[in-house]
């Protein structure tokens, strides 16, 4: 986070601003007490911030506080709510289905975050000094494309790919693995794995674009120097590329880990948490229990736990980042 630098208005400008005809009365008042001049400046600033802050507070800030409040009650969304203390939180950790949903989120993290970051770094190591390649911008455009397609559309596309005669099974048949074919999203053993791979597909491009842009900022002389020392590819990568990419790795991990934990649209469209509960995730549980099964308090507790996990992981990942001095 960066510190706030604000420009202090000088005394003259404050008076100059005030001595316009319309502000005459205020100008008189401002001259009366020099302290109130700054106070008026302050009041004006609040007028600028107020509209945005009101919208933010009413539709986001207050509901966040209410989610915490709801999580201590047992409420079906219609009748009266009863206070149950931390019972909902205990249930989040005791209810096997809810526990599983968090376990599934961890599995998805491996697919959404670890795999793309690893593959991205591996490719970055192989692609040396790619900023000198003219065709880079074309690849960047293509690799980034999955990021801008609506998740609902992405889900629809992959439902077809994983279907009985879809692309996934076609590829398997083509390489002689016909006995492996199945309806990937309908199978207890493979549905979560199939959803995870969609995340891998989504995030590889993002990671690669981030890392390559980072490599582009490394002075070429550094590479020249290690090459002259006779260092190989591996040494070059660990000594120069990896340390230089710490910031990008932190950003990529933050984005991908959070996207794994927030997974909702994909699960909702492809499996609704099924078959059984094999692909249910916290975000889906929160939605489903609040709006379908009438367990609003419990759903809120799931949402609070999920939010806390996201915030903690974001903070943990930001420790990787080099502290940059602005």
């Amino acid at each position, binding site marked *: 986070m960066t510190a706030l630098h604000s420009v202090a208005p000088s005394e003259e400008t404050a008076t100059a601003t005030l*001595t316009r005809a319309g502000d005459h009365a205020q100008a008189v008042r401002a001259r009366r007490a020099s302290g109130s001049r700054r106070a008026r400046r302050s009041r004006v600033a609040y007028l600028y911030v107020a509209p945005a802050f009101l*919208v933010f507070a009413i539709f*986001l800030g207050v509901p966040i506080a209410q989610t915490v409040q709801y999580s201590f009650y047992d409420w079906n969304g219609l009748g009266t709510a009863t206070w149950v203390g931390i019972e909902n939180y205990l249930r989040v950790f005791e209810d096997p289905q809810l526990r599983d949903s968090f376990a599934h989120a961890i599995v998805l993290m491996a697919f959404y975050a670890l795999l793309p970051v690893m593959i991205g770094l591996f490719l970055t190591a192989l692609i040396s000094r790619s900023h000198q390649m003219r065709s880079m911008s074309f690849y960047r455009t293509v690799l980034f494309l999955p990021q801008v397609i609506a998740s609902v559309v992405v889900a*629809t596309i992959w439902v077809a790919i994983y279907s009985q005669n879809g692309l996934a099974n076609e590829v398997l048949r083509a390489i002689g693995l016909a006995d492996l074919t199945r309806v990937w999203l309908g199978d207890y053993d493979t549905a979560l794995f199939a959803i995870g791979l969609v995340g891998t597909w989504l995030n590889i491009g993002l990671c690669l*674009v981030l890392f390559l842009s980072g490599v582009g900022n490394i002075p070429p002389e550094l590479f020249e120097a290690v090459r002259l020392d006779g260092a190989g590819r591996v040494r070059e990568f660990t000594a120069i590329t990896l340390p230089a990419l710490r910031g990008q790795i932190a950003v990529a991990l933050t984005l991908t880990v959070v996207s794994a934990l927030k997974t909702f649209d994909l699960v909702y469209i492809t499996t609704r948490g099924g078959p059984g509960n094999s692909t249910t995730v916290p975000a889906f549980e929160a939605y489903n229990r609040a*709006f379908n099964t009438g367990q609003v308090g419990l759903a809120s507790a799931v949402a609070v736990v*999920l939010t806390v996990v996201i915030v903690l992981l974001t903070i943990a990942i930001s420790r990787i980042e080099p502290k940059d001095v602005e």
Partner: protein
Amino acid sequence: MKLSLREKIVNQVILAMFAVFAIVPLLGVLLSSVTPSDENTGGFAIPSRLALENYGEAWTRGNFGVYVISSLIVTTAVVLLTVVLSILAGFAFARMRFIGSSVLFYVLLLGLTLPAEAFIIPLYFNMRSMGLTDSYWALILPQTAQSLAFATFWMRNQFRSFPGDILEAARLDGARDIRVLWQIVVPPTIAPIMTMAVLITMWTWNEFLIPLVMIVSNNLRTAPLGLAFFQGQHVTDYSLLAAAGVMVALPIAVLYFALQKRFISGMVGGISQR
């Protein structure tokens, strides 16, 4: 430093492989959308003819005319509201000193990382008690609130790098802050404002959870929500589904190809600055 020919080839091959991996599913859906319904099994096959009528059929059967208009209304309103409010707030955070400014700013920043699940449940019940559910307001206001965190943060960063002496000079000339902002600060900042507007357009257009929770009426559904329902009704009609999917994704994809530099720099830059 010159790359050897071998290195160049290796680079190209690796990048090409992953570009293919990224693009094949998207090409597949394009192909599927022009495959006649009766020969589409959901796989990857060259169609016997271009069945462009799939688009017309998906459009009318899926009611997409209505959904696209909904999406346009909501997206336009969210972008306009967010741009105006974030310019005002960003300017104050960047250029004015007031008590509690850092506290307010950090509260806003919370919105950058929090999942929608953190607020959507009470938000629905609040909206219901205000009688606002199942209306455009139920989509516009929360999505504006969601966008404001990023937008204010973005605008503050832009305005902080604005030369201070120009501001001082304008103030000495007796211009009021609000005129300084709209006539002197905003015009040269129009490019980053456009970048932000483009990103918010994408996020708003693609949003699924908020419409799913707030909207009941068929005629208020946004394009992604309409597609989700359409998908539920026509699970195995791959041609229709593909055509519908292409239609929902196309506006943003076209925007992306036209302004790819803005998209990528905005997404990479906006996040990296945190």
